[in-house]
């Protein structure tokens, strides 16, 4: 079909235009219908028709010399059959450089120009076809990427929703665990207080307690307290760090070098239970041993510790999930194109070597320049 049209066109040109006016397009032919005279296209002047394309510029607008270089601002139409037609400035007519592929601009010059339109046309067509193919391929790829992008997008959205659900659940859990921990702490506190209260009562009112304190102080278990034993276990209330002096210890033993249980109960016990001058040193296990020995306290303590660990775990989980959520939200907030066609680029990196530099582009992330010397510079 196309071939017929071209052949017809060639035929038509040859037939109708026996006196072809050089350098005009067919749409301008109506201005150059041969009469006796020619009116410059801008209407400025009427000249004899022989002066059209006679290599002398008569019209201001250059319209009398479409086919020569005579007019400074004229233009020449390259028909370029087989390729694309176009205009060139008149100054390029017969300047020794081939501008029109049909060689029509160098009809009177020292340069021989080949008609390259058919080849150019072929190449152009091949090129355009190639382009089309590339374009099709590109479109196909784009579609694919869009589909992938959409899927990925949905996947990520679902992931986000899931994560948000998890976060909500974790929040509930977290509150529960906080409450539980609080409860356990409170219980522990209570037990400890009760124990402390119980301790002082016991010391004051129960013999066994007198005995047990006596035994506590009687380090060598010989049934009597000595100056050394007192120095080891008893301190001043206001100066716990200082070891009692020989004299002070002796005074607490009521000036005797030894003190048995009955004497202890009537003398030092009272001083100790009053608790305003001296007290039993907080040695390891002294009061602790008192509480650790208590099973209630032990249980409460363990429960509190358990709840704290649980809470920490839940808190960590919650934080992780939240971080993932904000990451995902950040990624989802980026403009990936109307159809998410650029989504697949996220997470990819591309490298380009230019002379001594290697450039790395990670879309939606960062660009770096690394020289062969190994210096890496972030470009944003």
């Amino acid at each position, binding site marked *: 079909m196309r071939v017929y049209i071209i052949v017809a066109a060639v035929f038509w040109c040859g037939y109708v235009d026996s006196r072809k006016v050089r350098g005009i397009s067919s749409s301008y032919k109506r201005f150059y219908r041969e009469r006796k005279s020619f009116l410059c296209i801008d209407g400025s002047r009427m000249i004899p028709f022989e002066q059209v394309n006679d290599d002398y510029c008569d019209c201001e607008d250059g319209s009398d010399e479409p086919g020569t270089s005579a007019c400074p601002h004229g233009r020449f139409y390259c028909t370029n059959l087989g390729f694309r037609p176009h205009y060139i400035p008149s100054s390029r007519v017969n*300047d020794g450089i081939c501008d029109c592929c049909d060689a029509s601009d160098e009809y009177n010059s020292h340069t021989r120009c080949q008609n390259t339109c058919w080849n150019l046309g072929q190449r152009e067509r091949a090129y355009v076809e190639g382009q089309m193919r590339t374009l099709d391929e590109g479109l196909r790829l784009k579609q694919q990427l869009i589909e992938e992008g959409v899927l990925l997008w949905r996947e990520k959205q679902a992931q986000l929703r899931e994560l948000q659900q998890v976060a909500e659940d974790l929040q509930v859990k977290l509150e529960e665990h906080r409450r539980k921990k609080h409860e356990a702490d409170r219980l522990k506190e209570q037990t400890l207080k009760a124990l402390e209260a119980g301790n002082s009562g016991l010391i004051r009112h129960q013999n066994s307690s007198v005995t047990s304190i006596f035994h506590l102080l009687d380090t060598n278990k010989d049934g009597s307290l000595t100056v050394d034993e007192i120095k080891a276990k008893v301190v001043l209330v206001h100066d716990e760090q200082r070891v009692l002096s020989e004299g002070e210890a002796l005074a607490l033993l009521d000036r005797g070098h030894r003190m048995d249980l009955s004497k202890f109960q009537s003398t030092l016990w009272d001083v100790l239970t009053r608790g305003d001058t001296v007290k039993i040193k907080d040695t390891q296990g002294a009061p602790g041993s008192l509480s650790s020995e208590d099973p209630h306290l032990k249980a409460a303590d363990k429960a509190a510790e358990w709840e704290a660990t649980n809470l920490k775990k839940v808190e960590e989980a919650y934080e992780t999930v939240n971080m993932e959520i904000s990451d995902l939200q950040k990624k989802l907030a980026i403009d990936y194109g109307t159809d998410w066609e650029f989504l697949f680029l996220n997470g990819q990196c591309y490298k380009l070597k230019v002379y001594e530099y290697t450039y790395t582009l990670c879309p939606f992330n960062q660009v770096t320049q690394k020289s062969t010397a190994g210096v890496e510079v972030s470009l944003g």
Partner: protein
Amino acid sequence: MAPLLVVGLALCLSGTWAVDKGNFKTCEQSAFCKRQRALKPGESPYRALLETMELTNTRLTLQLINDNNKVRLLLELYRLQGNITRVKINELKPLKPRYEVPDVLIREPTTEPLSVLSQDENGVVLSLGVESQRVIISARPFRLDIMEGSDVLMSLNSRGLLAFEHLRMRKDTFSYKVTSTVASVWDNIKRTTKEEEEKVEDGMWEETFKSHTDSKPNGPSAVSLDFSLPGVEHVYGIPEHADTLRLKTTDNGDPYRLYNLDVFQYELYNPMALYGSVPVMVAHSPQRTTGIFWLNAAETWVDISSNTTVFGKMLDYVQGSSETPQTDVRWISESGIIDVFIMLGPTPKDVFSQYASLTGTQSFPPLASLGYHQCRWNYNDQEDVKSVDAGFDEHDIPYDFIWLDIEHTDGKRYFTWDPHKFATPKEMLQGLMDKKRKMVAIVDPHIKVDSNYKIHNEIRSLGFYVKNKDGGDYEGWCWPGSASYPDFTRADMRAWWASMFAYDQYEGTMENLHTWNDMNEPSVFNGPEVTMHKDAMHGSWEHRDIHNLYGLYVQMATAEGLIQRSGGVERPFVLTRAFFAGSQRIGAVWTGDNAAEWDHLKISIPMCLSMGLVGISFCGADIGGFFKSPSTELLVRWYQAGAYQPFYRAHAHLDTPRREPWLFGPENTALIREAVRQRYTFLPYWYQLFYRRDLLVHPVVEEGARGVTAYLPGKDEVWFDVHTFQKHNGAQNLYIPVTMSSIPVFQRGGSIIPRKLRVRRSSTCMEHDPYTLYVALNLQRTADGELYIDDGHTFNYEKKEFIYRKLTFANKVLSSVNLAPDAKFTTDSWIERIIVLGASKPSKVTLKTADGQEKQLEFDFNASMSVLTVRKPGMNAGADWTVTFQ
């Protein structure tokens, strides 16, 4: 990186956008200048020993004696063909030879007979042969007066400032002591009794400037002489200075300095030295024009004083005296001899041809080099070159040359290409050639010290480098880092350099690649005053002796290389920054690293005119300004002014934004296009006339100008605006309203200018185009002009391959007559149009060709403008013809 660093450093040092004056010497800081300038007039110790006079037919010799130290000088006096007198003064018996400048004169000048008219014990009168011209030699003190009739044209040593520091032994050296001990008793007695003990002053044997020490092994060696010019108020010349055309008096400041220097961001309106030196001064008065050519290549200072400066004028006014105006000048050079050519005119044209007979005329450039040149530091790579080239086509702006600055090389190794950015230079050059365009690449004279660089290795092994004072290769810092400098004063070195331009040596080059020599003062970044140490050695001569000549030699060797590579056929195009007397024979010169400022646009005109006055006509300034970035208005105005300056090149610094003509909006692109197109229509005129006086151009160089006032000279002249054809009378100040598109240009009535109006991509594309003849009639209704045509690029014109015709309009007949009947050349070009300005309406116009055929021509007459346009006469431009206007 290096250039940026250095520029940055320099910037830091200067702190502002101006030259750091402290980097360059004042007369006070230059020991010999200070010494010489301290001499008082009227105390000349020199006496002519008339009894020693010898006169052969054309040569007079005579001894002079300095009565203070008894050192004798030998004066030689010659009468040269064409009304020139040459005076040479040297020591009679110098300790060692003193430098005499070679290679500047085109040949040993032809002498003419001299004869003694009279002689007595006070002096001698010599006849100079023509027009009652005489030289009077007075004996005590020595003085020369050149007379014509009863007028003194010029006097030498009239103020007694002749000074010639003779070479001497250093008194504190061992060899001096030996000599004086061995010398005879009699000599010693004579020495102590008769001679005044010479004063040793600071700076005679060593001089330090800004941490650079000049070792001065030869001691003081300066020469100096004064000239008086009676009747002269205006003196011109001695470029290169960024100053007004008319030279100023120097009484209240430094003398004008001639010392080729790479001045970073030079300042305007001062006498500081710049890149080039031409020691030629032209003295002009309405009655007479004369010239002084001081042939000395060492550092030179020129003092000018006048009795008509403000003080003198006031004196005249007060006393009502009628004292004739007089200008006194004084030349001081650091070494060498006094060798001065006194060109006696009498007209300006005579002085120019006298000077040309000594040093030659402007080399005939390839036609294309008169077109537009697109340059910047730097076009980055081949792709960049290609896209700029395409930009010119896209925007329909003609251009002929695109340029590559230093970045095109492989690490500032000249004669090489950057392997990445310019990997396939021939491909690039072919691309340009396909468009009939050309390229220029830079080749500077500093050679990177690098044992992997062929050029360096060869120069080093041939021993061709300039030597430092200790005999090793001189090294300095320049663009490539550490660099050495070939000794271009050696003819064998220049021959070797020229051979490096052969296509098989300079790889990647083709015939459309031409050359640019920059930094050839020479520029040495870490040298004293950014140049070479004066005690560096060129064979047996010190750099001190030859300094101002170095740049000329670089360009000479380069141009020779371009000629040789074409087998002697093609005319070379080489641009240089440094220059000396005689550089005009080699190529083009530009005014160096100017700035994008209105004042720099203004100064480009006197700077190039000054060079033109002393023979270097192919001159231009960087369009747009090299440093800084021009406003759009300034850029457009610069393109317009540059279109009418001989060398037309846009250039810009590496750090400035791009400024190709199409980057400033369509309106400004159009203005620049129009300016460049005007340039191209006038190319035939530029080419053949180089230059006549038929065009008067007054470019707009003021920001925001609404009008300019141009002086149209000549009482009986008329001038035609070349754009509107409006006629104006001469001898008036004409106010011309201007818009952004205006370039006021006038054609002199009485002239015929051939133009080519079909402006194309490049000048080469216009080769075969027809001519339009612009015939501007004077008040006598006559006009004449010339038409010269050749192939535009070869030396074949020397073989008489050209067309040279005289065009004359008289008695209503325009005719073309062959001025060179023995020359042969044919052209396709024809005459497409004749425009007669100031015409009256003919009844018919008839063309008569050589074969006797007659043809009626069509014409159009514009009565309101008196412009007659003859349509398409059509005869060949090389033919005989007449056109009769009845």
